[in-house]
């Protein structure tokens, strides 16, 4: 089977700065040159390589995530695939009808009604009137805006606009679907609906290229992923492998930032390293799945190569979309730690965990005596918090507090019935 997408040694260069020199600017330049005999600044144009020598293939029905920090070139790759822009060198082969969820609702006209915009947007995406007519009911049902369908779009909330945009763009059932971070908008239940929609398309043979910073989504939707940084392909693998790599690089950056903000060039060489961060249950066994009302412990193993003495620790839990959910510090809890040469372990018990369903991971920092600089860092594997009530979507809430319901019994009172009747 031949691949539906072939991305062969593709590079894309952008000009930085002014695209065109204006006449006044040129004249000023002449004058300057005449006076100073300086060098011609129009010759040292600045270029920027958004994508450099990237190659990959995508087979029919496969899903591939593009993972990397902001400005890595992910969106440029999508634009190249969508034929919005041409590569500077290399070849992009796309076989089949392609639909891009890049800018939902781009091309909506505010003065036109929802109905008119469905047709307008549909034709922009390459459908004919007949094809839109056939899918019209489905689009309206999916967007959940039946009652406002004859209202001008300018009166819609942003959520409604996005829902309508997604409904139109995803109803196409393309051979190839490009999704760029569009699910970040819209509420949790609609997001869930979109994910199900995308999965259904995948099952029907659509191939998917997916860009998101939400690693939970990437894991849920994609089999494979590529990691991109500075416009270059760093590695390619299963989405699990790539997500781990992405998180590691994020943490590396965080460390760099942290040491920079402390005014130091490097991470403090602490002579200690974190060897393992894991979640364990009440029986002390490592686990990767749990319920939010269970009691768990985050356990950290470390190896110290020298006596360090008084030190501190921080434990952070991040949700898959990068949201820090908790930040626990020994320093604030007045718990003192002493580290001596050798292997050791510290742990913190969360009783109960109280997180809402979703994918999370924990990180830990070992800190110096006055809690001002990090000396070692470690991160856990992903763990999944499940909801007791099956089928409830993730990300709809952050935490499940300990709770106790109650109801006060009302004291029977004489109420005049006449008031209620009127």
């Amino acid at each position, binding site marked *: 089977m031949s691949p539906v997408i072939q991305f062969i040694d593709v590079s894309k260069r*952008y000009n930085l700065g002014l695209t065109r020199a204006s006449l006044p600017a040129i004249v000023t330049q002449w004058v300057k040159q005449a006076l100073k005999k300086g060098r011609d600044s129009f010759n040292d144009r600045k270029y920027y390589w958004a994508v450099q020598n990237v190659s990959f293939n995508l087979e029919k029905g496969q899903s591939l995530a593009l993972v990397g920090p902001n400005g890595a070139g992910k969106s440029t790759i999508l*634009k190249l695939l969508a034929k919005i822009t041409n590569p500077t060198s290399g070849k992009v082969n796309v076989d089949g009808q392609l639909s891009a969820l890049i800018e939902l609702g781009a091309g909506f006209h505010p003065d*036109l009604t929802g109905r008119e915009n469905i047709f307008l947007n549909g*034709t922009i995406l*390459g459908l*004919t009137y007949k094809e839109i007519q056939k899918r019209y009911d489905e689009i309206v049902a999916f967007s959940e805006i039946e009652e406002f369908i004859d209202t001008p779009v300018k009166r819609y909330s942003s959520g409604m606009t996005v829902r309508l945009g997604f409904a139109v763009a995803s109803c196409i059932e393309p051979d190839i679907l490009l999704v760029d971070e569009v699910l970040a908008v819209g509420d949790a239940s609609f997001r869930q609906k979109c994910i199900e929609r995308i999965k259904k398309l995948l099952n029907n043979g659509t191939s998917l290229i997916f860009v998101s910073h939400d690693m939970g989504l990437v894991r849920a939707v994609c089999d494979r992923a590529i990691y991109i940084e500075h416009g270059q392909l760093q590695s390619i693998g299963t989405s699990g492998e790539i997500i781990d790599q992405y998180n590691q690089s994020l943490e590396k950056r965080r460390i760099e930032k942290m040491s920079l903000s402390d005014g130091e060039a490097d991470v403090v060489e602490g002579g200690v390293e974190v060897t393992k961060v894991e979640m364990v249950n009440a029986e002390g066994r490592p686990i990767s799945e749990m319920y939010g009302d269970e009691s768990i412990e985050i356990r950290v193993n470390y190896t110290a190569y020298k006596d360090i003495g008084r030190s501190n620790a921080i434990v952070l839990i991040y949700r898959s979309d990068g949201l820090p959910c908790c930040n626990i510090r020994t320093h604030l809890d007045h718990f003192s730690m002493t580290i001596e040469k050798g292997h050791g372990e510290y742990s913190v018990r969360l009783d109960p965990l109280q997180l809402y369903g979703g994918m999370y991971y924990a990180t830990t920092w070992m800190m110096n005596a006055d809690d001002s600089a990090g000396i070692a860092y470690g991160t856990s594997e992903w763990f999944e918090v499940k909801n007791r009530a099956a089928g409830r979507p993730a990300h709809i809430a952050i935490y499940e507090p300990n709770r106790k319901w109650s109801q006060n019994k009302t004291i029977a009172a004489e109420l005049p019935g006449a008031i209620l009747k009127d």
Partner: protein
Amino acid sequence: MLTQAKQLLKTRDLVWAWTVRTLRGRYQQSALGWLWAIVQPVATVAIFAVVFTRIVPVDTGGVPYILFSYSAVVPWTLLSTSITDMAMSLVQNMNLVGKIYFPREALPIATLLARLADFGISFILLIILVIIFRIPVSFIGLLYLPIIFLIQLALILGLGIGSAALNVFYRDVDPLLKLIIQVWFYASPILYPISLVPEKWRWLYFLNPMAGILAAYRDVLIYNQLPGNYLLPSAIVSLLIFVVGYWFFKRVEFQFADII
């Protein structure tokens, strides 16, 4: 060229939807609505009529001045409004051009179609005027109308599509175009008959394609005669402009998303 025509055919629904969008957007929240299509040329003609019958009378060859100027103002308005609109059509929809792929010609062409709707309405009024003033019109003359119209369309398409593309690179195109159209207006037989142009300069005068086009409209609609040889240079120049404009558009369209 053939595959391009095929692709354009495939996007005719998009062109149509965009035309409707443009018209709706233009007239939705206005009280007069499509009547604006007539108001503008009628107002222009009313002013001309006062100036050129009362103050500086112009020899129209026995035709009422109102009809004389309206017959040229209608096609002229089509040209001037559609070209300025088309020039802005890509730049005004940057977010679309930069984010979604679709055949880029669709935008300027739909913009032209929306102006054609206005032209249709004001042209109907022209026909009504011709009937009211009991101007005799020959059948063979009417057969010329579609030819004249096609020549004008080629001219507009070439200029409009070319300037839409050029405007992506240089925003000077829009003000420059307005300036050119202003000058062009006086260089075309709208206020005055061609007989005012000295005989020895006629050949040069008819290099302006609008001179031939407007003269032909007048010959057919109000002078009951067939267009003369002067239409040929207009046709050639218009076709040339169409080819160059379209060629330029196709040559640079792949850069639009990067520059816009």
